[in-house]
Each structure stands twice: as C-alpha cells, then as structure tokens.
C-alpha cells in the first residue's frame, strides 16, 4: 500500500515545492534569450541573423541570432578572467583540501593521540559558525599580518603582500577540509580492516598496504569528498568576498558586482552556461560511478 495515495495533500505540496524550486531557473534561462537590453521585461527572442542591430534598446538582429548574449559573454574579458580565477581557485583548493582532509580522517579514525579531541572540535567550527564571522576573521588576520610584514620588512611595489588569489585559495582550503574529513571518515567507519591485515600478513609493508589496499578502497569516499570541496569552492561567495583582492575576482563576485549596476541578459546567459556545465559534470560523474559499481 502506497501511503502517498492516501495523502493527496502530500502530492499537492510536492508538486508545488518542485514548481517553486524550478520556476526561477526557468525564468533565468528564458531571459538569457531576451532581445531587450535592459532585461526587465521579456520582449521576445532575437530572430534575425546578421550584423548587430539595435532598435529602441532591443536587439533585433545579431550575428549569433537568438544566442546573441552568449556570444557577447564569450567576448567579455572580465567574465573570462573571472571564470579562469574561479576554476584555478577551485582546482587548487580542492586538491589540497582533499589530501589534508583525507589524512585527518585517517588519523581520527585509526589513531589515538593527545590532540584528537581538540582536532575533532576544531573541525566542527566551520559548520557551526556563520560564514561571515569566518570571512571577516580571515580578512582581519590577513590585513593585520600583511600590514605588519609590509612595514617591518619594508616591502614596496610588487613585493607588497596583499589580498589576492593566494588568500582566497588558503581560505577555501580552510572551509573545505572539515567536509572532506567528515565524508572520508564516514567511509572509513564502515571499512573492513581485515583486508589490510591480510596484506600485511602476506608481507606487504605499511606503505604498500596503504597504496594497494587502503587507498583503492577509500577512493569513492575521497572522490565524493573532493566533489564536495569543489562544489563548495565554486559556489562560495561570502568568504571570497572578504578575502579577494584586485585581479582575483571570481564569477559569483563578478555577478554580485553587476547586480548593483546595470544588468543585461549577459548575466542570464552566464547563469545558463553555469547550470549546463555543472549539470553535465554531475551527470558524467554519476555515469562513471554507476559504471564502477557495475564492473
């Protein structure tokens, strides 16, 4: 007996909530094809191909046709720079956080040491304090430290320490490590140690056992931890907002800046591309995981 059938209210609510979740996405994507440059009212699609032509603030003709704003996006140097920064930060911080977090998970699950309780507590901090508190804390640390070092070491010009890609990457590693450690540790907890014991009995040393037995078994956990760190980094606004400097603008920061100025459908085109890229990436990853399970 399916209880859903007995509760029409549940079904109605479900449909409404899904509608609530998807309506904004639908609006976002539709407006990326808007012919209106001010993008407040949807004026229709751009139907004509040819040299760009503007009538009353409406694009009536474009070399890219309906995909006008996507072509404009590709030509926008600021967007391309921001995209490159976003990916650089995400890749470096994900790789670092995954290694650091996996090591911590191994330590916490497998070893007893004096700082264990303290480490566990420290890893909970980013989860229980608001992001803004962490953001301004890191900002304060860097600005005070850089101020002090710049004066003490008499650094000038290019040598002066300032906020930039480096500070953003370090901050992203900080908030990603606890999540990687949590995910990997959960995987380790349901882990049969007899495989490792067997490897050791058969003469493998600790290092070989780790590489040939522990790591392959741990890999799905490590990968989902890495995926989580990558998503967190891509999506982060608050911490990046406080720790970025000139030249290290990321896409979320760039979009936020635009929202306070003039918005053309380029922002929507950017959102559409963003959704498509992430969607494809996740589908690909699911497909890979399913294949792994089957084999």
């Amino acid at each position, binding site marked *: 007996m399916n209880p859903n059938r007995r509760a029409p209210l549940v079904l109605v609510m479900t449909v409404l909530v899904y509608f*609530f979740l998807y309506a904004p996405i639908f609006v976002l994507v539709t407006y990326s094809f808007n012919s209106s440059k001010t993008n407040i009212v949807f004026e229709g699609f751009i139907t004509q191909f040819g040299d760009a032509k503007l009538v009353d603030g409406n694009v009536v003709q474009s070399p890219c046709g309906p995909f006008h704003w996507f072509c404009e996006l590709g030509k926008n140097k600021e967007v391309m720079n921001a995209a490159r920064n976003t990916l650089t930060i995400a890749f470096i911080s994900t790789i670092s956080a995954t290694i650091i977090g996996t090591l911590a998970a191994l330590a916490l699950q497998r070893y007893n040491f004096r700082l264990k309780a303290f480490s566990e507590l*420290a890893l909970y901090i980013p989860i229980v304090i608001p992001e803004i508190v962490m953001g301004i804390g890191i900002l304060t640390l860097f600005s005070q430290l850089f101020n002090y070092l710049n004066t003490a070491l008499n650094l000038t010009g290019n040598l002066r320490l300032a906020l930039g890609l480096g500070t953003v990457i370090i901050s992203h590693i900080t908030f990603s490590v606890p999540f990687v450690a949590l995910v990997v540790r959960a995987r380790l907890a349901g882990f049969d140690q007899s495989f490792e014991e067997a490897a050791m009995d058969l003469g493998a040393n600790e290092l070989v056992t780790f590489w040939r037995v522990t790591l392959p078994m741990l890999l799905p956990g490590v990968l989902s931890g890495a995926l989580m760190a990558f998503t967190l980094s891509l999506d982060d606004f608050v911490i990046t907002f406080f720790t970025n400097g000139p030249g290290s603008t990321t896409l979320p920061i760039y979009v936020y800046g635009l929202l306070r100025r003039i918005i053309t459908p380029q922002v929507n085109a950017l959102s559409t591309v963003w959704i498509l890229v992430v969607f494809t990436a996740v589908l690909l990853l699911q497909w890979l995981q399913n294949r792994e399970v089957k084999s």
Partner: protein
Amino acid sequence: MLRKLRESKSFQGTLLVTPTLIFMVGLLIIPLILTAIISFGQRSSDGGVIYTFTLENYTRLVGFSTSCDNGAASCFDPLYVNILWRSLVLAFQTTILVILLAYPLSYFIARAPAKRRNTFLFMVLVPLWTNFVIRVYAWMMILRTQGVLNGVLGAIANALNIPFAPLEMLYTPGAVLVGMVYEFLPFMILPIFTSLEKIDNSLYEAAADLGANTFRTFFRVTLPLSMPGVVAGTILVFIPVMGTFIVSDILGGRQVILVGNLIQRQFLDARDPTFGSAASLVLMVMTLVVTYFYTRKFGLGEEIIIA
C-alpha cells in the same frame, strides 16, 4: 629512540592531523581570537585599529551611543538591537517555512519506489548547483514591479476583467523571506529525507494494524522518528540565514538591514572594523546559544554528517 618515536601510533596520528590543525588553528581559531581582541579596540581615523580595552563597541551595539545628535553625553538608540532582533526573527521564520515546505516533499521522496528516489532527490539538487548569487538574481527578476510575477498576475487579472496595479514586492521584508526560503530549502530536504528513508515500512503497517489513522500515525510514528533529520536541517538552515547578507542586500535594498549587512558595511563602507568585529562576535554567540539550546532539547542530529 627516534625510530621508536616514528613507529609510535600516537606520533603517526599527530603527524597526519598536523596539516589540518595548521589550517584550523591558523585560519579559524587565531582569526576568532583576533576578532575578539579587535572588538575591544578603538577605530583609528584612517579606518585602522588602535589596540586598547574599551567596551564602547558593545555598549553602542546594545543602544547606548556616546555621540548623540543632541550633544548629550549618552543617549539610547535601539537601531542595532532592532537589527539583531530582526535577523533572529527572520531566521526563525525562514526555518519554520522551510520545514513546512521540505517535510511533505521529503516524505513523498522517501515513500516513492526505490528506483525513482534518486531521480527525485537529484531534482532537488539541480537548483542548488546554480550559484547562490545567481539564485538571488532570479528572484529579483521575478519580484520586481515590471517583473515576471506581476506580469503573470496582470495577465490573469486582465483575463478575468479585474483592474490590476502592479504590486511593489521587491525591496520588502517579504521578498527577503522568499529569497532566504528558496536559498536554503534543499538543505532541509536532504536530512529529513535521510531520516524518513530509514523508517521501516513495518512500523507503518503495525500502526495501521493497531487501528491508528493517518493523522495519528504521522504524529506518533513518522514525526518522532524523523526528528533527527529536522534537527540537522534546522542547524544547516538557521546558522547560514543568520549571517547571510546577499539576499537582504539584493532583494531588500536599503529597506531590510540584517546583522550580516551591518557587519559587511563596517568592514567595507563605514571602515570601522572594531565595531564590525563586535557585531560579528555577538552574531556568533547568538547562533551558538540558539543552536546549543535547540540541540540540547532535541539532541544533535547525526544526519548533519550525511547531508
């Protein structure tokens, strides 16, 4: 001696956790201590910090200002208390609304046939992958006076021959509430689903056999057993809502100022990091106190880890 040390389990464990500790201590604990120290300091004329010990930032936060418009030595202005209160109320409203919306959906997914569950769950996650800032922007497009919602309402009114004037929805507290609910809804669905999925079907059957109706089964079986999920979801929603400033910034304009906006402005526009630090510490203490009492009453949801 050295060899013995290297082989000791305790040493190996410490070694493995050292990089994590460097980050957690260096970039979380030390900054928090620094924030606390600065909150007792004084602002210098160039927006820097003079390290002294004064409670001035805190007295200003609770409403006793030392620089009054009428020239008096001190006067009461509840501006900041109001901001803190408003943030707290909004966080509670958001959390309650999110639970009310997330629960039926999570229940539906958990009771759906196993092979379809993943697809339904996947559909919850897709909106989450668009960026946080982009999602706020989408609501800006929907709610503004010439926006999508007014367009739809206007069309309906037109069809029914009712006179219609576009509603002013953007830059209101309601807009901020809708934006917050939208941003954090998936964070409630996942943990509630996880705890609902664990409930054995036989429990529902037993309840039905013993004569409980749907209503009674829900309040005596389903709800109590899914509480860990609700608790975990509440923590995942309440804490970020308390500190978020983009939603109120974009959807509230200058009308809705939350503690997050207050802190952000002290660090960027007003250039008073000492006052900003004090506000930030008060925010942290407020969320920790609420979370502490909440988890003490309902227990800490283990689902927080899965989510």
